[in-house]
């Protein structure tokens, strides 16, 4: 099992957001998580990444059988957990290339791979950028600073491509992308997914799931999974909204 979330309760500032969430992901699988605004999707993503503001009240998270909650955010990243942010953060004064190289080298240091100097890394970055059709002019710009909403999302997937994670949680990567960009980024994700990794897509829209076809769809409402199914569940939700599943969950 790649990821096991068992009976997870999570609070922020004293307010409990996740209330007994369960989720299992195997290598090679794509999972979609859908659900109303405020239901806790980003909370789950951030808890997986190790955001310090969230308090795990109960339950456990196992990553490849090991306790993920024991690890610091950077350790999780080096172990292969990646979260594409719903709202990617701007980091003024730090160039994309510089940042990505440091991140890449930290990971290589950890896994015993070969660290790259700026020139070598530039070659690698150019290759990876092709996957999301990103213009190299973005390499020397400050991380996300002044990027349009869609450019930020694309940049997140570039980071995923460089870091080659075992588990990628993409939190609404599709929102903000124009029609062409959605196709390009989705195709990029399809190229990056393999039998060796797992992908979690947090999304509101069925459209994304036409490109990246999920093996499972989970509906999160009020902090727990209230319905699960195959890719056809997304179509049903698109048609009927969330009320009927919410009702079923209560």
């Amino acid at each position, binding site marked *: 099992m790649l990821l096991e979330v068992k009976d997870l309760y999570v609070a922020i500032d004293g307010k409990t957001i996740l209330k007994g969430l369960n989720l299992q992901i195997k290598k090679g699988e794509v999972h979609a998580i859908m659900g109303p605004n405020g239901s806790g999707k980003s909370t789950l993503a951030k808890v997986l990444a190790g955001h*310090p503001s969230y308090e795990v009240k109960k339950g456990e998270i196992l990553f490849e059988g090991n306790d993920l909650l024991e690890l610091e955010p950077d350790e999780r990243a080096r172990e292969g957990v990646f979260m594409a942010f719903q709202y990617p953060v701007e*980091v003024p004064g730090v160039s994309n290339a510089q940042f990505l190289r440091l991140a890449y080298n*930290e990971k290589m240091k950890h896994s015993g791979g070969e660290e790259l100097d700026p020139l070598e890394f530039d070659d690698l970055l150019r290759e990876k950028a092709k996957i999301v059709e990103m213009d190299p002019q973005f390499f020397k710009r400050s991380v996300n600073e002044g990027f349009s909403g869609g450019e930020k999302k694309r940049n997140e997937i570039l980071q995923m491509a460089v870091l080659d994670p075992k588990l990628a949680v993409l939190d609404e990567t599709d929102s903000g992308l124009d029609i062409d960009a959605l196709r390009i980024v989705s195709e990029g994700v399809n190229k990056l997914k393999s039998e060796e990794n797992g992908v979690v897509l947090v999304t509101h829209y069925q459209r994304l799931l036409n490109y990246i076809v999920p093996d499972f769809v989970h509906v999160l409402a009020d902090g727990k999974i209230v319905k699960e199914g195959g890719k056809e569940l997304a179509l049903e939700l698109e048609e009927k909204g969330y009320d009927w599943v919410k009702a079923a969950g209560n």
Partner: protein
Amino acid sequence: MTVKAKLATGYIKEFARSIEASAQQDWLKDLRRKAFEYFTETGFPTSRDEDWKYTDVKEVAGGQWSVANHANAISESAGNAVNKIVFVDGIYSEDASSLGELPEGVVVSKFAESGDNEVFQENLSKIVEPEFSGFSALNTAFIDQGLFIHVPKNTKIDEPIHVVMVSTGEFTAFPRLLYVGEEGSEAEVLEVFTREFEGPYLTNAVSEVKLEKNAKLIHTRVQRESHAAFHIGVTKAVLSRDSVYDGTNLNLGGKLARHDANLEFTEENGEAWVDGLYLIEDGQHTDTHSRIDHKVKNCLSHQNYKGILDGKSRAVFNGKVYVHENASGTDAEQSNKNLLLSNDARVDTKPQLEIFNDDVKCAHGATVGQLEGEELFYLLTRGLNQDLARNLLTYGFAEEIINKITVPSIKKDLDEAVLNRLHAKL
């Protein structure tokens, strides 16, 4: 004996010896005597002086340092620039200095050889007057070694001139620079204060810059004294019509450091940047005072100072922009942002605008903050460890200033100093 007189005794002896031994022209000796007189009357500033409120120089004033009488040999400090003039403990080092080919008419000369030069006579001590402070009076009284740069009309110097001050022992040095750029001239000057000695010493520096019509100067000042040393320095630039001054001041060293970065527009249409970065850690105190005088119409001034403080350290920033009555069309902006990396660091920042004309565009602001939690988290989620993530964000904060440095060797040192902040000695 009064406190002032007591403080001055060491200097009285040194001064008498120095002026005695000097082969300088009478006008220069007179200037020095007057300055010394002024110093003995006023002494060093105290915290009762408004401008020195947060920086107590008792320890500086009380120190007993001698003045070096020869230039020690140095190893690496001077770097391998084409044009470099090196002073060791304040004394010109023939061995360490070298000049590439300079355009005709350019003067780069030690003060000892400048006494009869008219431009030198006309300008020395006119831009930074001895009365500016007890320190500048003392520096003027000890004018001996020093560098005079004169770039004639419509002349451009391609290679930057590095003026390197290296400290190697417990001395007091009085570095002094006079730069005069004539009409249409262009040059780049770097002043680097560095050391091959980690103990206490005192640098008391004065730099004067005069830019005539349409002259341009890039002026970078890097202060990386020992963390046990004292550094007191003044820079002042005076700008004529259409001239451009781009100044960047990096203050990294010193147990106690003070820099006054002043500038005056005396004719219309000048443009100036007076930017800087102070980066200090445990046990350091750094004080920047700046005064920009818009005395005439249609001049532009930009000031961007950034501060990074770690450990138990303290910074002072006091920036004044004066827009005088006649100075309509002035455009002045001033910003001082500070990043505190520890809870024990403290900064006192006071940007001040004094405007006596309505037809102006002025903006100023100051902030004091810490590393942004969400930015830090973002970097951590990409696998950067805490130290690296913090250093990278710190670098990002300072990047605007660091990237102004065009000389690769200095830029590289600075990059490393900031990025390896937790491990490297600045």
